[in-house]
């Protein structure tokens, strides 16, 4: 919470001014270019979305749109210099840079892919994404250990190592998912689909989202001690992911007809923005309870010096929920829109839907307790932790114990 360090200032200046603005224009151009291709290109839809993006036609569409966007942004910036100071641009551009880096990494990994004749549906162990994911697992575990070590040895070196490895892990995971998307087409063009279709894939997505939400908060509020809790949650998830892999749940499988919809690419990732943010809130809540305990015992522990204050932790938990709640709401609404298109009704009281509603009510109640009743502190920290347990049940428990229309997320 102290003033930002020199380091992030120097990096931050790259995101402001005309460099940031031009990049922002280019990214916006790419997005509009892709949308324009989907809407106006006559031959769009003949091949799958990813292959359209990778084709020459796709590159022409969004490449020219990117140039156009960048040019327009440069002109607008010259006309209205106040745009150079835009907070929106400064906040969004690093994220979009990250996406670009991830895509670049995925391309780099793709160069190591085995020859087409070696790729086989029956035995997917030679695909590169599996190895990248293994590297991600190791890096995340290392990061969690470093964050915990940083609590006891608050040298900036260990802290930087922890933060750095968290970044590396998240980028490895994200690029592995992108690569997996491409690999699914290498196996068979008919089988190919976005990598958000089974428990294993969404787990990796969850790690990355959780880590990125946490890192965004860490960067802005220097709350590194919280990482020990958030990254431990991620590490637990990593073990679950390894177990899933060991029981053969990590294979790329064809999509059941119910999932063959563009809605899947929107609904699922957005849901995991919600879940990931709730996981970070849970980490902040745990950190709060931990510090609260130390303080209650009048501890003079060195740990207290590393930790953010109770009030900051309280605010951080709230901030994560403020990110997660609207995302989760929107994801649920989009899920309803998909259900209306696929199942004949926007709401069927399917167990997954009902549990999503319960999660929503739990965090809605958290916000009411905080905003209208002015609750703070310990009770809400417990609430953030308990809320995440409900979220985990909604995410995992429903698939494992209850049946319903979402049963394709099931363990088999």
């Amino acid at each position, binding site marked *: 919470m102290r003033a930002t360090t020199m380091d992030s200032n120097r990096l931050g200046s790259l995101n402001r001014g005309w460099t940031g603005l031009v990049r922002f224009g280019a990214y916006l151009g790419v997005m509009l270019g892709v949308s324009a291709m989907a809407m106006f290109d006559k031959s769009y839809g003949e091949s799958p979305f990813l292959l359209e993006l990778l084709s020459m036609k796709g590159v022409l569409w969004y490449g020219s749109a990117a140039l156009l966007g960048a040019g327009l942004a440069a002109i607008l910036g010259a006309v209205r210099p106040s745009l150079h100071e835009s907070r929106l641009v400064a906040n969004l551009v690093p994220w979009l840079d990250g996406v670009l880096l991830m895509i670049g990494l995925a391309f780099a990994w793709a160069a190591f892919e085995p020859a087409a004749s070696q790729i086989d549906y029956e035995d997917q162990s030679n695909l590169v994404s599996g190895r990248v994911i293994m590297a991600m697992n190791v890096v995340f575990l290392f990061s969690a250990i470093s964050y915990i070590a940083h609590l006891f040895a608050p040298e900036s070196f260990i802290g930087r190592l922890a933060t750095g490895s968290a970044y590396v892990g998240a980028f490895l995971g994200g690029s592995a998912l992108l690569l997996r998307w491409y690999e699914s087409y290498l196996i068979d063009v008919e*089988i190919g689909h976005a990598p958000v279709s089974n428990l294993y894939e969404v787990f990796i997505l969850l790690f990355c989202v959780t880590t990125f939400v946490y890192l965004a908060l860490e960067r802005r509020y220097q709350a590194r001690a919280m990482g020990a809790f958030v990254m431990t949650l991620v590490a637990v998830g990593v073990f679950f992911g390894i177990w899933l892999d060991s029981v053969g749940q990590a294979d790329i499988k*064809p999509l*059941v*007809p119910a999932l063959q919809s563009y809605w899947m690419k929107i609904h699922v990732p957005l849901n995991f923005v919600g879940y990931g943010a709730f996981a970070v809130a849970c980490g902040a809540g745990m950190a709060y309870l931990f510090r609260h305990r130390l303080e209650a015992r009048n501890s003079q522990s060195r740990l207290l010096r590393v930790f953010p204050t109770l009030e900051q932790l309280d605010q951080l938990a709230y901030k994560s929920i403020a990110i997660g709640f609207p995302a989760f709401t*929107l994801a649920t609404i989009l899920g309803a829109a998909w259900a209306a298109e696929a199942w004949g*009704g926007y709401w069927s*009281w399917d*167990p997954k839907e009902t549990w999503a509603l319960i999660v929503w*009510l739990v965090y809605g109640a958290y916000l009411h307790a905080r905003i209208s009743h002015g609750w703070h502190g310990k009770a809400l920290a417990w609430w953030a932790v308990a809320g995440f347990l409900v979220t985990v049940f909604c995410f995992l428990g*429903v698939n494992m114990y209850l049946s319903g229309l979402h049963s394709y997320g099931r363990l088999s």
Partner: protein
Amino acid sequence: MNSLGDVFKSIWVRLGSMSLAIVLLVVLSIASVIGTVLLQNQDQGDYLQQFGPLWYWVFRSLGLFDMYHSWWFLTLLGFLMLSLAACLWRNVPRMLKEMRSRHPWLSERAMDRFRLKQQWLLGEEEVASIKQRFREVLAGWEFKEAAEGDMHFIRADKGRGNKWGYILVHAALLVILIGGWVSVEFGFRGDMAVPEGQSEDEISFLQGTERKYMKMPFSVRCNSFSIDFFPTGAPKEFRSNLTIIDDGKEVLTQDIIVNEPLYYKGVRIYQASFGDGGSKIRFRLFSLDGSAKVRDIETRVYETWKDENSGVSIEVTDFKPFNVENMAEPGQPKNFRDLGPAVEYILRGPGLKPVKIKAFMQPFIDNDGINQGSFLLVSLSGDAKDYQPVSLGLDLTNEDEWRLFHAFYRHLSASKIEDAKQRNLLAFRAALAEVYGDHPPERVQDAAMHVLQAMRMLPKLPWPYIPMLEDFDQVYYTGLQLAKDPGMNIVWVGSALLVLGLCIMFYMPHRKLWLVIRPVDGRMRVFLLGMANRNEMAFAHHFNEIFTKLTRESGRTIT
């Protein structure tokens, strides 16, 4: 007397209270959990079996088997709507007023309460420049100035509409609930099964524990239904070609697949399921009395064929043209293979235990490519879980093998040789010569294996004959779901408002800054005060930035 009015008023106040809202939300959550744990809308018989008569009736009278439509659950939702309405009614006018008013004036006490507070001690000219700079730094904010005695106040506001967030979110929930009510009250949703080539104009749906039927204003003809498969054998696409017939005229013909419904007269038609639509089945009955007799019968799926002579009946329950199974040994990589068409039937007869049988049309070819003869899956319990494979030995698609088996049996019975091995060999040679003459089959070994397996297995079967699938003429039915949902658009409007409201609430906090100027001993003490109703941490950061910028212009600070 005004007591009735007072009562209404106090009820109204209670309705809009936070406590009632929280109680309602908690009760709704708990009730929802019950509904996810207890499977909804299952067969009543299953419930009875699962819970026993007492609990079955308790649960049934509480409506727990269709909980989300039970009177008490709907009443809860109704109360939630009332509570939201009362809450809005009470708070909206106050919030609107608060949003309009922005007094620049602050009391001494109010100033003490600010957590974000900085001050300078400045000269006259510096004050003028800081005032101007304040407005420049805060481009886009709204300003209001006032003087009170010798004090001067400038108030700056950003995000004054933040309270619209609350209003929108709560109004949106009310709109969504109203939409849901409209959907339930004026819409319908039901299933329709249409066999290929036929048409249907009635849907069926569950209401409480009963199945209800409803006529549609048009009828739907299924022209064809098809399934597309992935190379792995998993289904890839279910496609129905449908024609809508309205008033005797064909008005629309269209394909539907999962995720791409058809829309006609406010009704959406979805691809929901499929099944056998009464395929024509030809059985070949292989007599087990040693007579080698074979005869063909014809029936249909869902029909029962009865043999008047023996009293045996065959009830055909299902037919599948593809049966993809994992043929790998446990622990080996998966190896999916299509075992070909199969028919399922229940075989009953006097003195016979009824059994469920799945008979495959083709013989079983093992992983080494060797023909292992025809086979059945037999379930004594009638449950598909209990299927046991029964290898018949003979390849019944090959008439010669059937004849070979009987010839062998005859020769074996007639033989007087003592040595079993020798007897078998000679009988088999004689049978071969009888059936094939001078042209024995290429794989005599296999044929011998088949006959020996049949000798072991066939005498054990209690039935007068084995019905095998000989031929079929497949007809699917397409399982459609028809839904009319006039409340859907209301729900989408509500959803849009909800997201908009949440964004305003969380991401457009109301931020206030004051510049308070007070003369002290010929100089000016200038206070910078800040307050945000959301995300104070980020605002504190911003506040410090503003303070630094203003200080750089105007010199000294005191704390």
